[in-house]
């Protein structure tokens, strides 16, 4: 096995193809036997029996975007941590565990500082308006 053996990725490709086949196949088979009488009423979106008003594609709240941004940063952090964590045991066995522990601690604690900052500033709160009004009220009371 001196050459790069990519056969290990075979199941991944096969499974992706199979997933498509299972999903597409069941829909195709169903297409042969299921009824198909679309009416205008059937094809409207459900809005509790009323006729839908406007489109659902509205401008969304920015908090979803904040969550996604924070998620990406932690995602990158964890992908950097994975290789270091994978060698930690080996480093520990040859007596270098202390140095690696220190570097991991530094790395994580710097990010924890960021998390604490976001927490204190209220960026992790879901209901922001409430928080803001509380601050305002406190400011007015002074």
């Amino acid at each position: 096995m001196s050459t790069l053996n990519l056969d290990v990725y075979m199941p991944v490709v096969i499974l992706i193809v199979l997933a498509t086949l299972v999903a597409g196949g069941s829909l195709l088979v169903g297409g042969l036997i299921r009824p198909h009488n679309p009416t205008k009423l059937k094809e409207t979106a459900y809005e509790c029996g009323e006729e839908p008003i406007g489109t659902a594609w509205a401008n969304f709240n920015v908090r979803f975007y904040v969550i996604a941004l924070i998620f990406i940063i932690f995602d990158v952090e964890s992908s950097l941590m994975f290789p270091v964590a994978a060698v930690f045991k080996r480093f520990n066995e040859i007596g270098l565990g202390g140095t690696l522990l220190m570097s991991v601690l530094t790395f994580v604690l710097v990010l924890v500082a960021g998390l604490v900052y976001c927490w204190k500033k209220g960026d992790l709160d879901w209901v922001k308006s409430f928080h803001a009004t509380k601050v305002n009220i406190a400011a007015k009371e002074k």
Partner: protein
Amino acid sequence: MNSTIFSYFSQSKELSTIISGLSKSLGFDATSLVAFIVFAIACLVVVGALATIGGLGTYAERKISADLQARQGPNRVGPYGILQFLADGVKMILKEDIIPANADRFTFILAPFLCMIGVFATLAVVPFSSGFTLTDLNVGIFYLVGMASLVGVGVFLGGYSSNSKWSMLGGMRGASQIISYEIPATITIISIVLLAGGLSMGTLIGGQGGMPQEWYMFHNPFAFIGFFVYFISALAETNRAPFDLPEAESELVSGYHTEYSGMRFGLFALAEYIEVFVVCGVATALFLGGYKVPFELGTGAILVEKLGLDIMLAKNIGQVLELGSFFTKTFALYYVVIWVRWTLPRLRVDQLMTLCWKYLTPIAIFNLLGCAVWMYAFNGKSIYSLIFETASTVAGHH
């Protein structure tokens, strides 16, 4: 390093004779071809088995909920109603397929496919037994995390494309919930990687043993907490109650799949039930010793030694025992997932985000650092072996 189900089968002599015979008759090296056939058959077996498990999952869900609420549950189709899922499947296929006129057709059709692909692709690294792992990639668990995140895209697109307000809210909630809870889950996985010293499923399970005290869950107090952090995050990632906000029927009708009917809805449901199995399997592999059987019965060495069996036969028996061990633990967790669903009330969306970012993520980071310090301070020994050693030295002194 990469071991696959093919490398397990190539231990037997028959396969190598088939390969050499085919290579002669075809005129080129047939190893890849035979590997492809073996993989294709194994993938079919896994997909078939998992689709059945997913179907039986819906049956188990209804039966267990009936038990918890002192009802009968499905009991008409087949003995104890066990064929109910087949009847449901036939019904799904026969249902009319409706695509809303205002929907984004391309995305509407694509969304269930994305969910299915994301879930099925994770099956490639699920360790059913030491031999029956489709492919034990070097980056196993990391690959699984990446593939599973496709489901989030599928859920979001399902919600977006319907152009219905309920679906849109459900899709946005679903996507943000799935990505948020990925963080504590991933950090907890890192702490286990730290204990095991590798990312492949083989390494992660290889560091554990068959007996409970050898599992990573009981390795140290941090890993013990980590198990619960992972389990809660996994529940949220798969949109299971009490975190089923994306499909909360009391507020969002049916959430991101409100507009989906028939088999398109069925694909979402099937993907969800299989994903629950996969995350239970991962929890088993990471924390509960995976496929390990007590007394190293899984390798078959003892059987050869004591009973004088043929080596390959003993190995196969060992594999069956390992499969039994893995499925027992996974189904036990699956039962807990269903049990939790019918016990706890649903969270509010702000509580959900608070739980993730203000409780689980800090706890997961604390566990990660705790595991690192434990590894360094006690040289990687588990709490059981520490107690055992202390006890034996104390006993030795007296």
